[in-house]
Each structure stands twice: as structure tokens, then as C-alpha cells.
């Protein structure tokens, strides 16, 4: 008897797939060989038609659901949506989630050893684009014996991978679920990412990305980058209700000289330091660049309608009312292009206070709509 609840996938073990066939990348370079770490939940059926690919966002990884051990404190990052009776119902689907190339959780990335030099790739790891990830995910599908995904699902940067799948491998995807995403980043979005990158590269311990050789870690820069990101993932409303102007220490009373510290300050610092101990700075730079470079329609004469005309799957698009990083308007652009391209699409705009982070949370209407759509993916229609 374990302590995990009935609707948990329980204890999961990551697996590693090694690929020896060179992978040509969008930047022009070629990755001679690489490893992808992944987890699976549920069982692949005999027809091999119940597989779902979950694509992770900026700082995500392969551990999307369940626990790694009995005393694991926190479950995977999308535990709310993956498990028995949840939208990605593991009684029904075979769910696959991997750490993308360039990641820092076990797949080949900047902190892996470059076989040509014998030392970590560091800043010399090739620049990744969303299409590179999708190509590597297609090879993982081959490896797992999956010809066609029942659905490719993702939030944020994950949603961008799902859309890329729909137009680059139209014959290998039946449903595309795009949550809190965009056809491309706005200048404001790129600006936030640039401030985050500058925070990292201006940390003296960054050493032009070669910190791996010296044993140093640009922890302050990485923490600062995360703090900036974190602000943009929350909404004004959520921050107001979560922290307001509450103080941790000090006072605003006249005559008190001690500096007041607001709760939001220590919260952000805690988030930053937690993150900097668990994430690689070069990976953060690589992932934010992949976000910035993503432009679904770039290779289709900047016409998202022309891009989506290649797609043959059905789409579900979801946005959140207070998400200002990937606002509902960005999802409207996706939906408008899909309608014009004559692609079947459903769209729901979820009222939620949690900002961009809402896509990770169990918001009742979000879960209901997601479940309703997955019912169809499961073959009811």
C-alpha cells in the first residue's frame, strides 16, 4: 500500500533512449548522436493508437506525473492532468513525456559531454529550434513503435511544439491540443527573455558559458532570470491576493528605521534560489532563445493560414483570462488562422486569476473542457 492517491500514476522510472543516427538541426549543424530521457504512463494498446505526447514548456522536463520514490516530496509538473480519471487518463492513454534536447534533466544538452572534445558542451551546444525538438520527438516515436499520436499536447512552449507537429508531421498526429501558447512571441515577450538572459550572462560566474569547466555556477544570474520570469507567469490579481502588501519583517510605521520587507520579495527570492540550484544556465538561455525564435509561419511566407493548411488533425485551443505572457488574444490568432485554413477547431477561454501559470493548475472549468475533448480523442467520436 502506498501513500499515493487513487488517481496518481504512482512511482515512475525514467528511461533513456539513445540515438546514433545524426540529427540535422535548423541552425545548420548536425548532432551526431544524442540521448533522450523520457517517462511513460499507462499502457500502449495493441493497435498502438492510444499514445499521447506531452511537450514541456521552458523549464519543464520528462517528469510530468507521479513520483520517483516513496518519499518523493513533489509529483511531476503536470500531475494535475495526467493519471487515472484525469484529462490525460492513463486507464485509456499511453502518455509519453520527454526532456527536450538541450535540456538539463537527462537528455543531451549543454551540460553533457561533447564527444569531440571530451568536456561539457557548455555554450557550444547547438542552438535548438522547436522544429529540432519535434524532429527528435518523431524519432522517439519511431523508437517506441508509435506511427501516429492520438494527440500531441502542450502548454506554453509545449503548445508551440504541438502546433509544429501538426504541420510538419500531419500524418502522425490526430489531435493537437494547444494551451496558453502563441503563433510567435511578441516584442514584449522577447524583451522579458532578453532581460533574463542578460541577468545570467552578466553574472561573473557565467564565464561566457564555460562555467562547467571551473566548477562554478552562475546561481545569482539564474535566480534573477527566474524571478523575472516568475513575475510574468503570475497575474497582477494573483499577486495581489497571494501577497498583497503584507510584510515579512520591518515596519512602515513612522519612526522605524528598519527596512520593511514585503512577502513578495522573499517569495521571489526563494523561487529564484530553488530554481538556480536545479537548472542549468546554458539550458535556460537555449530554451528562451527557442521561444524567441519560434514563428510557426516563418517558412510559410509568414502566413499562418498557409502553414495550418498542411495540418490534417483536429485542434483544441485553450487560453486563460489573466495570462498576459500568452494572452487570450494570441490564442484568438491561432483560432482565426485555423478557421481560415478550414481546420476543425474548438476553443475555450478559461476565467482564471493565476495568469500564465494557470495551465499547470487544477482549475475546474479547464479540467472539464480538457476532459471533454480527451473523451473524443479516446475514440468516442
Amino acid at each position: 500500500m502506498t501513500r499515493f492517491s487513487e488517481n496518481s500514476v504512482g512511482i515512475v522510472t525514467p528511461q533513456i533512449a539513445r540515438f546514433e543516427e545524426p540529427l540535422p538541426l535548423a541552425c545548420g549543424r548536425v548532432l551526431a548522436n544524442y540521448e533522450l530521457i523520457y517517462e511513460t504512463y499507462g499502457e500502449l494498446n495493441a493497435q498502438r493508437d492510444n499514445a499521447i505526447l506531452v511537450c514541456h514548456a521552458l523549464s519543464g522536463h520528462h517528469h510530468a506525473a507521479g513520483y520517483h520514490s516513496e518519499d518523493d516530496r513533489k509529483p511531476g509538473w503536470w500531475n494535475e492532468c495526467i493519471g487515472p480519471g484525469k484529462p490525460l487518463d492513463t486507464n485509456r492513454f499511453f502518455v509519453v513525456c520527454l526532456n527536450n534536447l538541450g535540456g538539463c534533466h537527462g537528455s543531451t544538452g549543454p551540460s553533457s559531454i561533447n564527444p569531440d572534445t571530451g568536456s561539457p558542451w557548455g555554450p557550444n551546444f547547438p542552438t535548438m529550434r522547436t522544429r529540432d525538438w519535434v524532429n527528435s520527438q518523431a524519432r522517439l516515436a519511431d523508437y517506441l513503435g508509435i506511427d501516429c499520436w492520438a494527440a500531441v499536447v502542450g502548454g506554453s512552449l509545449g503548445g508551440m511544439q504541438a502546433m509544429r507537429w501538426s504541420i510538419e508531421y500531419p500524418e502522425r498526429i490526430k489531435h493537437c491540443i494547444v494551451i496558453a501558447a502563441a503563433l510567435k512571441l511578441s516584442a514584449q515577450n522577447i524583451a522579458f527573455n532578453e532581460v533574463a538572459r542578460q541577468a545570467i550572462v552578466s553574472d561573473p560566474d557565467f564565464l561566457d558559458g564555460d562555467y562547467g569547466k571551473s566548477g562554478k555556477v552562475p546561481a545569482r544570474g539564474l535566480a534573477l532570470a527566474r524571478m523575472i520570469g516568475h513575475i510574468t507567469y503570475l497575474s497582477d490579481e494573483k499577486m495581489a491576493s497571494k501577497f498583497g502588501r503584507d510584510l515579512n519583517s520591518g515596519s512602515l510605521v513612522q519612526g522605524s528605521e528598519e527596512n520593511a520587507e514585503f512577502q513578495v520579495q522573499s517569495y521571489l527570492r526563494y523561487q529564484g534560489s530553488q530554481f538556480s540550484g536545479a537548472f542549468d544556465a546554458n539550458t535556460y538561455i537555449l530554451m528562451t532563445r527557442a521561444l524567441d525564435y519560434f514563428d510557426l509561419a516563418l517558412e510559410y511566407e509568414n502566413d499562418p493560414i498557409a502553414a495550418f493548411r498542411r495540418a490534417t488533425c483536429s485542434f483544441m485551443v485553450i487560453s486563460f483570462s489573466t495570462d498576459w505572457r500568452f494572452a487570450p488574444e494570441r490564442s484568438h490568432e491561432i483560432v482565426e488562422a485555423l478557421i481560415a485554413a478550414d481546420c476543425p477547431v474548438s476553443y475555450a477561454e478559461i476565467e482564471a486569476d493565476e495568469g500564465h501559470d494557470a495551465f499547470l493548475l487544477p482549475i475546474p472549468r479547464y479540467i472539464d473542457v480538457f476532459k471533454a475533448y480527451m473523451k473524443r480523442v479516446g475514440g468516442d467520436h
Partner: protein
Amino acid sequence: MRLDLAHIQRWIAPGARVLDLGCGDGEFLEYLRDNLDVRGMGLEIDHRYITTSIARGLHVVEQDMDKGLGNFPDQSFDTVVMALALQAVHYPERVLDEMLRIGREGIVTFPNFGHWRCRLHLGLLGRMPRSKTMPHTWYNTPNIHYCTVHDFEELCAAKGIKILARDVVDDSTRQPILSRKWPNLFATTAIYHITR
């Protein structure tokens, strides 16, 4: 199925591409899909209806038609249906224009405010009408633009909208003789098949 919907499905060709403005719980689109092989899409703002329609395997977009339908390309649907929603939109005239821009044909149904019972309510009792099809009080109703059969046909004439067919639903008989002859007085729900 609701009577007005049973009537209008006759005007939809098998295999047609249909946009249903205010698709509700999706019952009609589901019927069209299962019986006429229609490729349908619904527009809805009610959260529960959206979830129900999606669970039915329909394609539903959460969108308020009062905020415009500009995201739908010209002539991208065979038929655009708006059942019992004309009276609830802010700009009925604009929505009619949009319907016939997006679709080759349109089908509109609305409660007829010219029905004799409405007239009785207003004329004799001096009260705003309420009925089975119009159950709301005047101060709490989604229905903000009531019109009669005559009003609607006048608007169509003024806008150069062609009426391909008219049908009626009344609450008395299965053979609506009176309402066919004098729809403005006897139709509870008016049903129009229109085009440019």
C-alpha cells in the same frame, strides 16, 4: 428536437459546411453530423454548453458574436444558422450582414413578437408579454431586440436580403394553417431561409 430546428434541417444539404451561431448544447449540430454528414462548427459563450458540445465531439469556439465575426472568412460556410438568438444580439442588422458574408445562405429563427398573445398582453393587459418561448421578465432577459414577422421582412427588403423560404412554428396544431396564412399574428417562432 426543438421544433424550429426540426424545420430548418430540411434546408441544409447533406455534407454541407454549417456554422451554428449560438449552438447551445450542440444537439442540432450533432444531429446534422450524424444524419446529414454535415461538417459543423458552433459558436457559444455559455461555459456549460461549450463543454457539453465538445464532449459530443463537436467543434465549438468560445466567442461572443456581439464582439464581431471578423475572424470568419467570406463565404467560408455553406449555411450559417442562428436559431433563437437574433433577439438577444446587440446589433441584429450587423449579425445578419455577417451571416451572409460568411455563408452562402443563412437560416434565422426568432420568436415572433407579433403573435396574438403578445398583442393581447401588451394591448389589453398593458404588460410586456411572457410566454413559454419568451419566459423572461422585461428587467431580466437576454432578449433585447424583439421583432415581428413584418418587421423582419421589411428589414430584409431594405437590405436587399432575399428570402428563399419562410416557415413557422405555432403552439396550437401540427398543421399550422392559420400561422401559414397569417404568420404575423399566429406564428410563435418565425423561420427564414435567406441569401444575398
